[in-house]
């Protein structure tokens, strides 16, 4: 099978407009004959479901939480990018496009990124029209702030709760359609199988998490908007329910998985403090607008931060990257924090953290102003650490936060399975090997509000889809597979909990496939994961039954999928013999420790085809051409 990204011909500025014109339309009366299944209700899922319902499609929406409003997009803090150029600082669609391609270390598809930059402005307009309470200046215009990897202020925000406010905007649009009867909402459902009939995605099988019943839903197309797989690492900033199962099950049914090794380790998180920890907490990148990152110049300096005089501090980001300073991209900031702690200059009890210091900003702007900008973040830090960041510098350390990899999609956001679309973090499309801050919200809403509603119509208008009901034998078969698997999980009755397996796997991946990777470690991990998986199916302990709400069982099912998926992630990391963005192979670095790409050999998207559990996946390559942003070693100095 050859991968066809279906990128339209013509100059990059005209591709999307021309493509939209060329896409076939579904007439209004015919739209109501189509049944669309949307899985996941984060920014991508909610916005897509609402927009499709507004167009007249019948939409069924599924989410894992008790309400669509709780999807993990809600936890995004800092902001959303757009090329509005309101501050008059030289921003443009072209600059946002350029920054995003460069920020992604030249591993994204130019045409997708350009479209993202184009629709970024529509997103802000749309959200304001919905009543999203963005921060405002005294004259009533919108405020902006800066994020990493950009020298302009293009980030719109609602305090430290931008994700919450954007998601509530999309959620309200979605609930409006529920009220109109155009959307049927199915909360507390977990997708466990994708159903493919005659080569096209025609439905899903899910578990009703309250009753334990296996339920089948048929439709004309399926949109997976199920987020990233960061929780494969056990500790991440993701929510407890975030998981890889939906995309992994689709992968097993034929959807290629692209660039699974591209994971984002966010530089500013609250450091790990103990074994009991269930997750890590992010401190928004926006804090780097006013906070200064430093470590002591001396190794093993255990003095309290305020006791260390100015001249004995190393503001290493400002020193090494004077143009971008504390606002270098995330991969660069994380790698540097690791270098500092590796050198023995880390701070705190464990030595595994660096300072993020606001004392200068508080002196300059006053505590009130800082409170207004970041109040909820400071409170959150205070709650978790019991230290007051207005008085002592925050201690931060990198943590897994976002995954750039995901299901491979073409320009239409369709996977290699016709009729299966993938939106938001769940796809691989726009961020290359490193995502810039405040771009995830932009991509989720771009996919959902402004891309999928058009491209889905194009698919439905040209595909010849026969009638398929949920009584079709393919559904029976998928239901049987789901029930069989649950029975097996419950029957093992071993000695080790799914959480313990998950923690072991996470530690292995953090050590061998985390912020820095090398061939030796990756090969060792590749040997260990199948053994871990085998032990899981012999020794996992799941209590309770399958006919009720059983969170132990849910967790076990997700860990089982991580134990398969992680092997692909490590294999991808091993095969990519270069460093790019968040994928840092120790063997491939420049003299000053920056990521060293190999454009000759690796300027492609690695899309993997499933060949069976424990079998080597087959690699397909989508070559990447850079016709508008010229390949160059990234420099933020």
């Amino acid at each position, binding site marked *: 099978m050859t991968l066809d990204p279906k990128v339209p011909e013509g100059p990059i500025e005209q591709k999307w407009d021309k493509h939209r014109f060329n896409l076939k339309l579904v007439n209004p009366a015919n739209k109501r004959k189509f049944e669309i299944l949307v899985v996941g209700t984060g920014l991508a899922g909610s916005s897509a479901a609402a927009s499709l319902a507004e167009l007249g499609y019948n939409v069924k929406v599924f989410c894992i939480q008790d309400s669509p409003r709780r999807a993990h997009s809600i936890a995004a803090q800092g902001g959303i990018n757009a090329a509005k150029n309101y501050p008059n600082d030289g921003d443009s669609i072209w600059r946002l496009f350029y920054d995003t391609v460069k920020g992604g270390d030249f591993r994204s598809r130019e045409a997708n990124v350009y479209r993202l930059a184009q629709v970024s402005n529509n997103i802000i*307009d749309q*959200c304001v029209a919905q009543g999203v309470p963005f921060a405002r200046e005294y004259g009533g*215009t919108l405020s902006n702030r800066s994020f990493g990897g950009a020298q302009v202020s293009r980030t719109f925000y*609602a305090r430290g709760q931008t994700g919450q406010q954007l998601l509530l905007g999309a959620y*309200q649009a979605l609930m409006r359609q529920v009220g109109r009867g155009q959307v049927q909402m199915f*909360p507390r459902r977990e997708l466990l199988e994708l159903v493919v009939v005659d080569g096209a995605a025609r439905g899903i099988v899910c578990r009703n998490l309250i009753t334990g019943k296996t339920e089948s839903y048929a439709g004309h197309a399926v949109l997976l908007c199920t987020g990233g797989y960061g929780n494969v690492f056990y500790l991440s900033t993701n929510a407890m329910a975030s998981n890889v199962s939906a995309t992994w099950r689709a992968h097993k049914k034929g959807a290629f998985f692209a660039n699974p090794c591209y994971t984002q380790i966010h530089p500013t998180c609250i450091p790990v403090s103990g074994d*009991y920890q269930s997750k890590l907490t992010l401190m928004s990148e926006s804090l780097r607008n006013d906070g200064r990152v430093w470590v002591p110049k001396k190794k093993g300096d255990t003095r309290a931060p305020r006791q260390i005089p100015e001249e004995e501090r190393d503001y290493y980001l400002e020193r090494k990257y004077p143009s971008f300073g504390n606002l270098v991209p995330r991969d660069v900031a994380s790698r540097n924090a690791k270098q500092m702690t590796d050198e023995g200059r880390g701070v705190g009890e464990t030595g595994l953290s660096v300072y993020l210091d606001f004392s200068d900003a508080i002196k300059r702007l006053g505590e009130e102003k800082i409170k207004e900008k970041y109040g909820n973040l400071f409170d*959150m830090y205070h709650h978790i650490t*019991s230290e007051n960041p207005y008085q002592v510098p925050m201690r931060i350390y990198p943590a897994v936060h976002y995954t750039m990899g995901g299901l491979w999609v073409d320009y239409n956001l369709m996977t290699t399975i016709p009729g299966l679309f993938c939106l938001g973090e769940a796809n691989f499309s726009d961020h290359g090997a490193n995502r810039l801050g405040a771009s995830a919200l932009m991509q989720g809403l771009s996919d959902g509000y*402004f891309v999928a509603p058009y491209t889905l119509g194009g698919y439905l208008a040209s595909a010849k889809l026969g009638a398929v009901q949920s009584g079709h034998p393919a559904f029976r078969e998928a239901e049987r597979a789901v029930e069989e698997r649950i029975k097996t999980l419950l029957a093992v009755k071993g000695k080790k909990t799914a959480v313990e397996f998950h923690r072991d796997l996470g530690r292995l991946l953090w050590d061998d496939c985390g912020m820095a990777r090398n061939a030796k470690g990756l090969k060792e991990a590749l040997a260990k994961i199948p053994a871990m998986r085998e032990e899981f199916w012999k020794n996992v302990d799941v209590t309770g039954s399958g006919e009720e709400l059983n969170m132990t069982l849910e967790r076990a099912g997700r860990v089982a999928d991580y134990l398969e998926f992680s092997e692909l992630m490590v294999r991808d990391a091993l095969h990519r013999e270069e460093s790019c963005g968040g994928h840092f192979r120790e063997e491939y670095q420049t003299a000053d420790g920056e990521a060293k790409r190999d454009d000759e050999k690796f300027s492609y998207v690695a899309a993997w085809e499933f060949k069976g559990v424990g079998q080597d996946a087959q690699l397909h390559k989508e070559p990447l051409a850079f016709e508008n942003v010229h390949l160059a070693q990234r420099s933020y100095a």
Partner: protein
Amino acid sequence: MNEKKKLNLTLKIWRQKGPGDAGRFVECKAENISPDASFLEMLDVVNEGLVKRGEEAIAFDSDCREGICGMCSLVINGKPHGPELGTATCQLHMRTFQDGDTITVEPFRAKAFPPVKDLVVDRSAFDRIVAAGGFVSVNTGNPQDANSILIGHAVAEKAMDAAACIGCGACVAACPNASAMLFVAAKVSHLALLPQGQPERMRRVAQMRAQMDAEGFGNCSNEYACEAACPKEISVRAIARLNREYLKASLCSEE
């Protein structure tokens, strides 16, 4: 690492097999708990122990564990989200408790939040209230430039104060009448303050209130318990605004 003194606690936890079953308090031990652990991480430790002993884990809701998704709940020692002001259960840390404490843990109780299992309740009534009118009716498309709607800084901040509601339902659990007034007031205030969606302002408040009543939530009798329990510290002044909006809609609506 600095060895902080670990906590040993007794929990009195509400266990209930399913919606139709009788519930009861069950006592269990939480041992060797780090004071830096969150309340939910303490329950994770307890659950791991239960599963290891072949027993069923205690069902409780949680997701983001950063205090923003609104999925976690629990009435801890009689208070929704526990003893700390402005804090959701997931951000409540065990350093708040003393070694040897006995802690009572119950679900959010309200007629409109039917029980599901153990500490889990069904809060979908909130979604139905939003579906009844908690939105601005604007389709995806090409609205005017964002800066053509000017909103003063103070108004935007006030709207944001109300919009900060996480929809957890603590206000309902805290209210002796199990009223959802603070939840409804937060959304009504957020949207009433802004210029967007003004044409449906009266319709919105009327329909949201009607749905609130239909779901079986009680009335407001000015107890202010909701404000005290709210993890986002949303002020009861929002309820005053809701009442004004409702009165105006009752008197002046053209519909």
